[in-house]
């Protein structure tokens, strides 16, 4: 039996809000299998973003354990976590978070540049990614020359171009109209499944949850 793509065990995380501690996660345990798409739902302040940050190695838990592909993560130095994010994790943000001075192609190419992928291979994979997200011919456009849906397609292509083991998506349809959102949901589902990437998607969108293999509900820092 293969190791889970990601495993959280009794993860706790709290912040200080002034003098008051805020317990964002009170002991979350979660396993995500390779290729599995998990929807993370819950009201605002339930801890969704904190779970995504912990899963995406953007933030460290106060206690508990994290594993990726069976390998424990929490004793690793920041440089090692950065390497893991570079190689194994793709991110899709609610606000797209594309670099405005980079064209669509450049944004998609960026993770491959970090990985030191040869130029010819980069070109091939960027063209392929643009094709797969339906933006063939638009690679030369800057983000502000693209619609919201097109920008999120670029962001999805950027997350998946390096064939990551895990995709972290934070409200990927939050800034899109319903028709575009439906296309983006379908695209994200299709591409992650095609590439065998596990995905954790924080969402309020019911259409999104319908495409996910499993829905996990968070309330007050605990899995419901």
């Amino acid at each position, binding site marked *: 039996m293969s190791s889970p793509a990601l495993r959280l065990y009794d993860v706790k995380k709290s912040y200080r809000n002034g003098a008051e501690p805020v317990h964002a996660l009170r002991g979350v345990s979660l396993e995500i299998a390779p290729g599995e798409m998990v929807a993370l739902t819950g009201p605002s302040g339930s801890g969704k973003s904190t779970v995504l*940050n912990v899963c*995406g190695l*953007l*933030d460290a838990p106060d206690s508990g354990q994290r594993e990726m592909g069976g390998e424990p993560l929490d004793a690793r130095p920041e*440089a090692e976590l*950065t*390497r893991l*994010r*570079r*190689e194994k*994790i*793709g*991110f899709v*943000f609610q606000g797209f*978070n594309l*670099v*405005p*001075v*980079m064209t669509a192609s*450049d944004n998609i*190419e*960026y*993770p491959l*540049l*970090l990985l030191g992928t040869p130029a010819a291979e980069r070109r091939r994979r960027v063209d392929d990614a643009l094709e797969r997200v339906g933006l063939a011919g638009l690679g030369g456009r800057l983000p502000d020359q693209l619609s919201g849906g097109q920008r999120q397609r670029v962001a999805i292509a*950027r997350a998946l171009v390096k064939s990551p083991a895990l995709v972290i998506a934070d409200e990927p349809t939050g800034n899109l109209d319903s028709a575009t959102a439906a296309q983006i949901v379908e695209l994200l589902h299709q591409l992650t499944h095609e590439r065998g990437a596990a995905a954790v998607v924080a969402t309020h969108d019911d259409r999104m949850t319908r495409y996910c293999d499993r829905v996990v509900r968070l309330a007050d820092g605990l899995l419901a």
Partner: protein
Amino acid sequence: MKWLVFALRNVLRNRRRSLTALLITAIGTAAVLVGGGFALFTYDSLREVSARDSGHVVVGARDFFTGDEDVPMQNGLGGAAALQAELAALPGVRAVLPRIEFSGLISNGDKSAVFVGRGVVAQTDFRVRGVQTGFVAGEPFDAGASLPEIAIGKDLARIMKANVGSGLTLLSTTTEGNLNAVDVVVRGIVSVGVPEIDRRLVIADIGAVQKLLLTDKVSTLSLYLSDMEQSDAVAGSLAATHPQIAVRTWLDLASFYQAVRALYNRIFGMLGGIILVIVLFAMVNTLGMAVAERTREIGTLRAIGTRPDEIVRNFVLEAAVIGGGGALAGMAIAGAVTIALLFAGIQMPPPPGRSTGYPLLVNFSAVLYAATGAAVIAASALAAWWVSAKAARRPITEALAHV
């Protein structure tokens, strides 16, 4: 190359701000290059003057440069003619000129004044020194005249009420400690541009001076070389082969040149330092705002696996683009100023202690241009590192939440 393209696009992101930083850098660079070029012109001019005045290499008796004399020519160089012939035969030596330094009183019959004299081989010495000794009236004297001829400083001529053709008397102490006098005719009135010297200067034929002092010695032999850069080598070689004589290079004797150089190095060094600090702060301001505005972008890039040092490198590249562009523009401005001054004919006022000004010119130096460009780019890079290092290490979640 991709990173440089991204850096260039980021620089163009806020054109006005980048242009302001670039202009400050350009003006700073131009100021350093023009100021530095002026200092180099001054150094070169003084170097030329000093070397022409003393000779590239000067030899004297063992104690001539360090000892005090009880009587004139006590530390003079004997057997100078043979040594002069030997030195003149050395490769790279263009001329060897004997000189005598002496002093005494000069009189027109009614009044007397102290003079400081040089005994020279007239025609050769005036030719070798060139325009340095400028004739205000008259011409270089002739060694073969029936009465010894001299040139005197213009202020001394005024004091003595002398003109070309006037008869004067030189009075000096001989090598035996007695007084001796010689009647002379003024053949030329000269100015070296320093009032204190022009009030005292007498230049006479070396043979006449030897008769006046009752000596066959000379004070020094001045060697003029084909290549001034060989001065140290020739001096070193002479010191090794002639331990009985003292050898000095023009630089050893050029105390005014060395003082001016030390002063200008400090002044222009401080000016350059201040300008670099201004460039540094301009860049800190420009890139600091860019870093603050792009905090969320930095968070995104960090999230997708960019290391902090790669974030810093990107900002350093942006700074290098602005700094490099500013440096190039500054070099173009400085080059234009350098050329314009060649045609403008602007004269600087006389420096303290001198009576003549000098042209305002700026030297071009590839080394100065390269060093200034490198310093400006390094200051820009330092500024970028300074403002971006902390932001690059900010927690990613904080950076992503930045509004």
